[in-house]
């Protein structure tokens, strides 16, 4: 649910990073946080367990620049990936403007990817959204690992709808900003389309 504030001339949008446990959602945000000009970012919040697994969410506010005199601000959230935190995942999807699905490329995580994708579709539906209509991109993360599944196989399994997708290695930063920029673009184009 984007929020356009004429008083402070700001547009605020919410992006949620979704995906199975340990796929690299938090790593994406950490990379963005580390590489962004301090003037453009707020504090990153991680509500994590002692073993650094995300408990509720990570949050990173980011300013991208101006469009027609409006400051564009994106609020980046991750969900906890572990299966039993489903209640938290549903809450975080409230008011979402765009979704990044981070898939774990390791061949043995394929089932977890598919399960998480189904879970995303169901949870979005519960909030009144249709995954085929919201701005949505897929990131195939951990492409550098030797046990990564072939890209074509991942595309067939996870992206039959043909949404924009990106290869990434979040630990070295490859593909992280490309993914973010693309989903941000889709959100803004969506705002424009809805305005017609």
């Amino acid at each position, binding site marked *: *649910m*984007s*929020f*356009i*504030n*004429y*008083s*402070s001339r700001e547009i*605020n949008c*919410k992006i949620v990073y979704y995906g199975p446990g340990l796929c690299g959602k938090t790593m994406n945000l950490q990379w963005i946080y580390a590489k962004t000009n301090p003037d453009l970012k*707020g*504090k990153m*919040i991680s*509500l994590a367990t002692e073993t650094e697994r995300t408990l*509720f*969410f990570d*949050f990173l*506010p980011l300013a*991208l*620049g*101006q*469009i*027609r005199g409006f400051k*564009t601000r994106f*609020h980046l959230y991750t969900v906890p990936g572990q299966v039993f935190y489903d*209640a*938290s995942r*549903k*809450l*975080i999807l*409230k*008011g979402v403007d765009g979704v990044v699905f981070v898939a774990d490329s390791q061949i043995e995580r394929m089932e977890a990817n598919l399960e998480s994708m189904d879970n995303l579709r169901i949870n979005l539906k519960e*909030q*009144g*959204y249709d995954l085929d209509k919201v701005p949505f991109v897929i990131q195939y993360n951990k492409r550098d690992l030797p046990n990564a599944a072939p890209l074509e196989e991942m595309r067939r399994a996870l992206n039959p709808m043909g949404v924009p997708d990106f290869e990434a290695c979040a630990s070295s930063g490859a593909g992280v900003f490309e993914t973010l*920029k693309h989903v*941000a*673009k889709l959100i*803004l*184009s969506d*705002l*424009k389309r*809805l*305005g*017609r």
Partner: protein
Amino acid sequence: MDTQMVMYEEDHKKILLVIGRLVREANAKAVFVVDRNGQLIAEAGETRGIDTTSLASLTAGTIAATGGLAKIIGETDFPVHFHQGVKDNLHVTMVAGRWILVVVFDERSSLGLVRLRVKKAMADLSKVFEDLKKKADSEAASGSSPFAEITDDDIDNLFND
């Protein structure tokens, strides 16, 4: 799904007026209005040194989490929260289902006074938000949006640096 929210300066001023008065009448340190999705709408009082963006996001997270808890025991929501600290306290109230009013106060005030003043402010805010919703609904119905005018180039330029 809620409609997209657009806040115009006149509405923002009305909200500021209400929460500015609440700061004074409740002897509060600061007052914030946040929406349920974690966006900060307005702030008043001694807000310097407070990370307001994080405050908004975490408040919305707390409301969402306790709302989930409420459903487990058969309630629809817990509309009022109170967090007691050593020096500063937080009083959090839901307004009109979609908005959250956060009052930060210390020993200069008391829970009773804050509760009393929040009640009055809530009635005033509900009216402002009702008008805001009507405006948003009629705009959604007419299909007009401030974003109809932006071009693909505008969007591309944002990413060119």
